[in-house]
């Protein structure tokens, strides 16, 4: 496979983006980002105020119902987007940066540095993700920050592994060698010659990972290892809904919020992958014709 040229990638994007799932993913993701940004304007109630009837079923004035403390669930979900979505994005960006940097060093410099980093990654891979994240979160103490940290610790190795593989392949290319032979330093070679040519697949991984990261983060909150009451966090809201199972709306709506965000970002990730992979891009084009 030839390295992606920026121009070719751009010209391939439109066809992939016109697929129905891509459109749905894009619309839903943008909608959630807008809700998160404009929650104070959109939310009908204060997410923490306990001034509504308790466990009221969905109806006028509280469209998603109220929880056992008389808080409006719709408003809490909107405010919850301000917690979950930015934290998830931050999480993915951080694990991409940390995993990517470690993987790039491992791939480019090889030898004992690379071996050390990759064995550390293998160590993390050896544990089931959720269990390890729980252990870390429990050890650090239950808080949202520690939950993010825990997810970060289990998330970076996949980036490290993918980046290392791509860098290993790219390092052997003649133009990378050529850069070294023009007298540039190893650091410059990695930064200018290698990294821009491996970012495509890593970005796809990151986009697909947004869903996983959100699930893991809400999962930790659900288990009581993340956000603390009374803060509006989707995982914690689902957990509180479990206590009042007859009032289905308490757990269902935050659950749907998680579901839609995860699906939307997965669709976006698939689209990005299709757009960046020449073979699928061609297949899409042929179908479109």
């Amino acid at each position, binding site marked *: 496979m*030839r*390295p*992606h*040229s*920026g*121009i*070719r990638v751009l010209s391939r994007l439109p066809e992939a983006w016109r697929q129905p799932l891509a459109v749905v993913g894009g619309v839903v993701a943008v909608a959630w980002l807008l809700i998160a940004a404009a929650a104070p304007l959109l939310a009908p109630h204060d997410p923490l105020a306990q001034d509504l009837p308790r466990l009221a079923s969905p109806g006028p004035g509280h469209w998603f119902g109220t929880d056992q403390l008389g808080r409006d669930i719709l408003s809490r979900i909107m405010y919850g987007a301000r917690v979950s979505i930015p934290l998830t994005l931050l999480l993915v960006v951080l694990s991409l940066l940390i995993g990517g940097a470690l993987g790039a060093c491992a791939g480019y*410099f*090889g*030898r004992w540095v690379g071996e050390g980093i990759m064995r550390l990654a293998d160590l993390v891979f050896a544990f089931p993700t959720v269990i390890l994240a729980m252990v870390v979160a429990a050890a650090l103490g239950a808080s949202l920050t520690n939950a993010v940290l825990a997810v970060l610790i289990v998330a970076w190795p996949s980036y490290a592994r993918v980046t290392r593989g791509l860098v290993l392949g790219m*390092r*052997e*290319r*003649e*133009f990378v*060698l*050529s*850069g*070294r*032979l*023009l*007298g*540039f*330093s*190893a650091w410059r070679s990695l930064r*200018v*010659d290698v990294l*821009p*040519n491996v970012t495509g697949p890593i970005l796809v991984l990151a986009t697909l990972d947004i869903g996983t990261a959100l699930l893991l983060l809400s999962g930790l909150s659900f288990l009581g290892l993340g956000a603390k009451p009374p803060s509006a966090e989707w995982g914690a809201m689902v957990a509180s809904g479990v206590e009042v199972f007859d009032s289905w709306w308490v757990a269902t709506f935050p659950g749907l919020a998680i579901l839609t965000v995860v699906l939307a970002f997965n669709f976006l990730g698939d689209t990005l992958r299709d757009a960046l992979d020449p073979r699928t891009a061609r297949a899409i084009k042929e179908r479109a014709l």
Partner: protein
Amino acid sequence: MTSSALSVEDLRVSIGEQEILRGVDIALAPGRVHGLAGESGSGKTMTGLAALGLLPHGSRTAGRVTLGGRNLLDLPQRELNKVRGREIAMVFQDPATSLHPMLTIGRQLTEHMRHHLGLGRAEARARAIDLLGQVRIPGPAAAVDRYPHQFSGGMRQRVAIAIALACGPKVLIADEPTTALDVTVQAGVLRLLRGLCDDLGLAVLLVTHDLGVMSAVADDVSVMKDGLVVETGPRGRVLREPDHPYTRALLDALPREPSAARPGVIPGTPPVEGFDALPKEGS
């Protein structure tokens, strides 16, 4: 030879138990093209890369590669980076892979000039346009802002040559520079190399397995086999009256006038499997 621009003396490179170069001697003189011929795996490319101080991980090296009074094999990385690109440069076989696909030609031409020569942006750009003209790229002022994929193979190789020559090196290592090009384009690139060599007093090491290319442009010829230079001398003598049986066998293997006779097979194999893997370099 005291006037040599680059001299390789008794260069030995081994990886593990395998000795890949077993005492190579080559001297490049300013204004002359030195052709280096030999079968695949005979150590031609390794010699070229070693001349730039680029050796595979975990290899052991002995001998000297002297450029401007310094032995490149002894230089620390920082010093080596100052020499590479500025005093000695390299052109690769396949211009499709030797140019960065995501940077404009102009960026690739100016970056090392600014780095090595400390030129300003405008100065470097002017010189880049000038260089593209020298390697006969049509419309050089527009070409600097294009990307490699917008050029044909022959043009890309000219661009690669322009990049190699940008900082005014004294020595150019050209590793099979025309192998990936078709025959008519080959001739143009070879003429260009020959012309640059004459005009700039450049010392060129032309690594090739193509004796036709060799006889077209080389002044001197060395023939390698199994990590050794088996014969070296002026082109006319080596190609017309070869001393070494291997050289003779190589020449006999060339297809001549249309004839039914199949080219003969030369006995022997390259020393290492998968030898062509490009060397890696660490920190």
